[in-house]
């Protein structure tokens, strides 16, 4: 029994249909716990007032925006090396989720920045990096839409994802070099002295776990849809041939 068995679409459909209700339930419970805990049962920050509550959506969304791209990179590589269709379909399924997470991070950041920094938008390295990440998601999805042949589309988008990852990283460092920003450092790194205090950290961890589970649920659902779409296409083609 190896992990590659899940690359078989039939096996994937069976396993995911069994796992999906559990993952969905867990996602709803964890997300609600994290957000309700954060929203109703945490104190205000002495400097930021109640705006600190935005952290429970802003940070997890930003984390998922990046992790989603990392996941797409891995699954694209698996497609290029081992030619497993489920892998590349998972990448396709994840992209809109990652793009939405990027948008959430940008919007909540803008809304948060308005009272804190006195501006909706600044060309701060982190904000700029996320805007660039959004452009990469946009290009990746547009390429999927533009190519008719599914295998060519999978190859082209996977190559784009690899090259895009390198350039996204480059942009990150270029942008850091270009402008020093307003944004605070990492909120949750384990050895950081600027660690947020435990009162905020525990609900934040919960909320992050909730976002991970939500992402997993949506990707499973969407990958199942993509597999069905692919099978439908194959059946229609076979019918036309007959």
């Amino acid at each position: 029994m190896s992990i590659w068995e899940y690359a078989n679409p039939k096996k994937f459909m069976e396993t995911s249909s069994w796992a999906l209700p559990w993952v969905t339930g867990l996602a709803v419970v964890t997300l609600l716990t994290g957000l309700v805990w954060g929203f109703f049962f945490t104190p205000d920050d002495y400097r930021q007032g109640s705006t600190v509550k935005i952290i429970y959506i802003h940070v997890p969304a930003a984390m998922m925006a990046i992790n989603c791209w990392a996941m797409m990179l891995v699954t694209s590589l698996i497609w290029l090396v081992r030619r497993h269709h489920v892998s590349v379909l998972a990448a396709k399924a994840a992209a809109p989720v990652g793009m939405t997470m990027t948008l959430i991070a940008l919007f909540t950041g803008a809304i948060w920045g308005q009272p804190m920094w006195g501006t909706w938008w600044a060309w701060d390295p982190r904000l700029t990096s996320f805007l660039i990440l959004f452009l990469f998601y946009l290009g990746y999805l547009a390429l999927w839409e533009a190519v008719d042949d599914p295998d060519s589309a999978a190859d082209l988008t996977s190559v784009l994802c690899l090259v895009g990852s390198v350039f996204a990283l480059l942009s990150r460092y270029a942008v850091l070099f270009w402008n020093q920003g307003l944004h605070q450092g990492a909120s949750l790194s384990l050895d950081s002295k600027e660690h947020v205090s435990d009162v905020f950290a525990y609900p934040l961890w919960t909320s992050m776990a909730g976002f991970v589970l939500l992402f997993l649920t949506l990707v499973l659902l969407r990958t199942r849809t993509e597999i069905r779409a692919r099978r439908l296409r194959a059946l229609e083609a076979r019918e036309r041939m007959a």
Partner: protein
Amino acid sequence: MVGLGKYAATVLGAYAVTILLLAVLVIATLRRGRVMRERLEAQERRMARHG
């Protein structure tokens, strides 16, 4: 209700935007999933009938 103080609009706005975006994503996912499932089932039935 917790007191949000003078930043109530900010906090509620951020949560509202998030919920709106997530709702759009979830609804789009579910709708496309249902459409694909139905179309695939119809296609499989038709092909089973005609051999």
